[in-house]
């Protein structure tokens, strides 16, 4: 019943949204998240993008766009002077700023953090609709989904690998089941040892107890190498014994588009099953 209600609401909002956007597809867009910027480029709508954050570095052309602040701290005044007709905010945008922009009369759409691969795809489709590029978006999503399916088939019969993903040190921070990063691990034939943890803060002792076969560290600049050294002290860990601690680009792991999801997933399959060295 509950699912039914949710589905209908989603359907209705989509219909409503498509109705609204069919009336006026925005021509001056500001993106407040790196992955949204990347998706706008994927949808070949970059000429409509008039501003993005300083973290939007991919593709390289995005560096040339006007910068309106960081992902978490935007400059409302700068946004206003760029005269956008649509601002796309993420879950990291401050609510006060969103409110302010709306008050001034700028249309703001908020994209929540995707919880799984499916949500990444759905958001991408929604963006396609907003940008009047739905067919292209659907095409890209279908290809990505097909590839993911193929990878899943390939990894289904391989032995499962226990994985610990570290995205922050001090306190040790990991990814739980309600993030799309969990999909990366499961799709590539791994088990996320922190899947059922309530929050991302995870104790080192629990890692020792779970004894993961692989530890993946998302780059935190120089810290990642330091963290690797710290893990190496625990010689009883399987991951240490077999020298299977990997460092992976946080960009790839933490802000994916349907396309980069597939790329990162392929890399992870190599890491988990074929001892691939980067």
């Amino acid at each position: 019943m509950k699912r039914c209600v949710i589905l209908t609401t989603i359907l209705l909002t989509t219909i409503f949204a498509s109705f609204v956007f069919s009336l006026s597809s925005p021509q001056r867009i500001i993106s407040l998240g790196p992955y949204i910027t990347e998706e706008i480029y994927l949808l070949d709508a970059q000429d409509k993008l008039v501003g993005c954050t300083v973290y939007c570095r991919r593709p390289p052309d995005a560096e040339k766009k006007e910068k309106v602040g960081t992902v978490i701290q935007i400059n409302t005044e700068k946004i206003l002077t760029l005269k956008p007709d649509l601002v796309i905010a993420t879950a990291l945008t401050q609510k006060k700023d969103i409110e302010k922009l709306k008050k001034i009369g700028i249309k703001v759409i908020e994209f929540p953090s995707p919880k799984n691969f499916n949500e990444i795809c759905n958001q991408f489709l929604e963006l396609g609709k907003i940008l009047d590029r739905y067919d292209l978006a659907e095409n890209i999503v279908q290809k990505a989904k097909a590839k993911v399916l193929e990878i899943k088939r390939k990894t289904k019969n391989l032995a499962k690998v226990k994985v610990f993903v570290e995205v922050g040190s001090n306190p040790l921070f990991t990814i739980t089941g309600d993030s799309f990063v969990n999909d990366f691990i499961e799709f590539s034939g791994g088990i996320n040892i922190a899947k059922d943890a309530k929050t991302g803060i995870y104790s080192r002792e629990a890692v020792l107890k779970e004894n993961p076969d692989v530890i993946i560290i998302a780059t935190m600049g120089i810290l990642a190498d330091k963290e690797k050294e710290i893990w190496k002290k625990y010689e009883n860990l399987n991951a240490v014994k077999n020298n299977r601690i990997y460092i992976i680009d946080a960009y790839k792991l933490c802000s994916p588009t349907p396309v980069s999801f597939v790329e990162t997933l392929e890399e992870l399959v190599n890491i988990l099953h074929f001892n691939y060295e980067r």
Partner: protein
Amino acid sequence: MKDKLVNWAIWIGILVIFLLIIIIFSLSVGPTDIPFKKFISLIFKGKGSVEYSVLFDIRIPRILLGFAIGGALSLAGVILQGLFRNPLVEPYTLGISGGAVLGVCLNIVFQLDKNLGIISLPFSGFLGAILIILLVYSLSIKRGILKINELLLIGVMLSFILSSLNMLIMAVSHIQDLQGVIFWIMGSLAEPNWFLIKLMFFVSILGLLFSYLFCHALNALSLGEEEALHLGINVEITKRLLFILASLLTGFSVSIAGIIGFVGLAVPHFMRNLIGNDYRILLISSFLSGAGFLILCDTLARTIILPLELPVGVITGILGGSIFIYIISKKQIKL
């Protein structure tokens, strides 16, 4: 006496002029520079243009809020320092800010802000602040007497307990919620809601007027409680009302703009050093200079590394702290 009045009038004049210069500076700088000359034509003919919107929707609300919060915090600082006869006391010492943070933390963790809108954040913050004020207050009253030293100790201890509680909540909360809490704590004058800005403005002006009922009492209290009593001051009532006044000013400020440090500590000292310890002039001059200081800091915070914006607390701390240390080391001031 006449000389003194003239002297004070000059000081107030100087502070008002400084304030006006800062306001004009703040109005004209930003990603789009709007020269002063253009203001008047903008006001009458600019409606609908981007510059008009920048001025009226972004800069003026921030300046008004900066004025109100800066004034309120400095005033609260002056009053509390006078009340406790302790130079280290500032508006956040007594756990009021911790209470507000706790209110906001709980609000965000229980997702009330998602259901009731972000307007519920200042309200829950204020509720937390009020609860702590009442708690500190009732714990410090012994046999009908408000014990000032105990009030201070209990307040400091409570603020430690609260900060641990807040850490506890943050440690077990979701990462998405965490970000909301941290940004709220950092403090910001970018308040979208006009009602809150007007409310804060009203509260701080009212607080200033109200504080003047006690300027003689504060002067007397600076000699000591017993001496004040001999001078005919109703010490008990004065202490209570002053504590409540300063707490309310702090509570409103913190729940609307988050924690903006240093204004309430540095500005009062600066004024004491510059103008003297007479509360008749100290109250208004602290208010005006606190307002100007915060507006200036906020202007720097939003323009210093364009297009990025810094949290205003970064500037108040660095600027206020350095000026303060410079003055202390330069002159042998009496705290």
